[in-house]
């Protein structure tokens, strides 16, 4: 058995019954007939995983975990993909990276120990942060996203970072923000570049340790997943708690006095926040505590929420656009004026699908959870 086939034991792939429920629910299979998680499993198990590494469909899976919700024997399909991708990377195979691979290069560059980054330019004087303390705000990719996407879309990713610090300040917390924070490595993990992931993780853990932080807050669900679960899994436990900002807001909801925001909204559950971390209620609780906000759920929500169509900056194609378009149509059909998401990447992907052909555009505002909470604070 080759190495990748051996790895299959861990993701329970051997237990697959070939029932096809995964293919029936997968958002990619819905628009791309040649993509079938069931077949990828059957091929891998029957012919050996080595046969899959040159298959371009290997890079299509969103690792959104939707199929695992339905699987009767709990096959962890995303992990199966990760393991085969890891073998593919070892053999120098790579899929179609979006944006010319720029974002992957940034992730890999961030693993260079000698790097001294300038990531904190967005911190203005009215935001209170410090360099040592109990609570740390892990900003994630927002500064890079800002440089890369702010010009293309009418959207400034760094407002999410500013608003997160505003919310924390409102709670009387002066968070630590690291000057030289590295990419959390989440995407490289799912792309099977596990060594680079470990390097990034070690650098981050060292930096976080030096600040003495007991609680790490993130505004990105992927950072939360990486810091909370993936670092523990690959690098041995971490000695701090990790919370997404929505959890913190929901816990402290009595400490907020929101002003009225008259708005009909609907909520996009990010895959990592929902299906991976199980945080469904907290963002809803926080949003609904704002007077004037009316929340309409989409038919596919919570465990059954549909992914924003692209992950890990890979394989953005017509299928991704179709997923995004149908998801936005679903959001619009609830009668909501604004789609609230808690993940910066969902926002980038949805906004991208709104660009271009005006006649095809689904006209709905998209905003981040922290933006809406912070706007109710100012009011």
């Amino acid at each position: 058995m080759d190495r990748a086939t051996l790895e299959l034991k861990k993701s329970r792939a051997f237990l697959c019954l070939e029932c096809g429920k995964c293919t029936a629910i997968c958002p990619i299979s819905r628009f791309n007939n040649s993509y079938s998680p069931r077949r990828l499993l059957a091929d891998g198990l029957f012919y050996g995983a080595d046969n899959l590494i040159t298959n371009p469909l290997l890079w299509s899976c969103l690792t959104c975990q939707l199929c695992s919700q339905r699987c009767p024997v709990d096959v962890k399909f995303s992990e199966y993909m990760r393991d085969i991708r890891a073998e593919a990377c070892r053999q120098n195979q790579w899929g179609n990276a979006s944006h010319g691979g720029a974002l992957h290069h940034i992730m890999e560059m961030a693993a260079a120990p000698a790097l001294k980054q300038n990531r904190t330019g967005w911190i203005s004087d009215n935001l209170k942060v410090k360099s040592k303390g109990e609570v740390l705000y892990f900003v994630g990719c927002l500064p890079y996203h800002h440089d890369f996407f702010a010009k293309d879309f009418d959207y400034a990713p760094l407002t999410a970072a500013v608003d997160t610090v505003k919310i924390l300040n409102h709670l009387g917390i002066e968070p630590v923000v690291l000057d030289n924070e590295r990419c959390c490595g989440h995407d490289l993990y799912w792309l099977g570049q596990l060594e680079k992931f470990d390097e990034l993780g070690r650098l981050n853990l060292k930096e976080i340790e030096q600040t003495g932080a007991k609680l790490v807050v993130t505004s990105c669900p992927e950072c939360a997943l990486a810091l909370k679960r993936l670092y523990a899994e690959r690098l041995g436990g971490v000695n701090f708690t990790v919370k997404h900002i929505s959890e913190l807001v929901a816990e402290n909801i009595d400490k907020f006095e929101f002003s009225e925001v008259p708005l009909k909204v609907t909520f996009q559950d990010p895959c990592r926040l929902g299906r991976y971390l199980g945080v469904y209620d907290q963002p809803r609780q926080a949003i609904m505590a704002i007077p004037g906000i009316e929340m309409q759920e989409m038919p596919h929500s919570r465990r059954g929420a549909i992914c924003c169509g692209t992950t890990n900056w890979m394989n953005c194609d017509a299928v991704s656009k179709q997923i995004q378009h149908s998801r936005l149509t679903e959001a619009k059909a609830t009668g909501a004026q604004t789609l609230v998401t808690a993940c910066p990447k969902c926002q980038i992907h949805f906004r991208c699908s709104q660009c271009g052909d005006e006649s095809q555009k689904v006209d709905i505002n998209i905003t981040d959870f922290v933006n809406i909470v912070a706007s109710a604070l100012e009011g």
Partner: protein
Amino acid sequence: MAGKVSKTKKKTAKAKFVPNIVAFACNWCSYAGADTAGINRVQYSPNFRVIRTMCSGRVTPGHVLKALKLGADGVLVSGCHFGDCHYIFGNYKAVEQFDRTKALVKTLGLDERRIRLEWVSAAEGTRWGEVIDEFVAQITTLGPSPLNHKPKSRK
């Protein structure tokens, strides 16, 4: 390369830093300009590798960042002068892309002088030599890139 020299000739205390530069040159002007430099036997620094692209507008942040990631000490993007681009507005696009790259390079904490955008026409062989010489001199004063390491082979 630099490291090897210092090992064989132990007496030279510190190996001199020789910059490694990647130059993206558009097919219609700058690459031809580099050819002209060769034909005219212009004498200039040899520490660069040219990558020919059809147009400078093709060079995206991904290309420049990849070169830097793999250990280039400097990256040059060169195209036709404004108004001369074979694809009419490709070099305007190059400016946009380059601004984006520059912002990312700054955020990553690399010196923004490590990347450079220049316009060299097919006739300007001498100018190509000057641009390279100037850039090499600048990178030499900046020293090796913090990412300058032996790259592992990976796509």
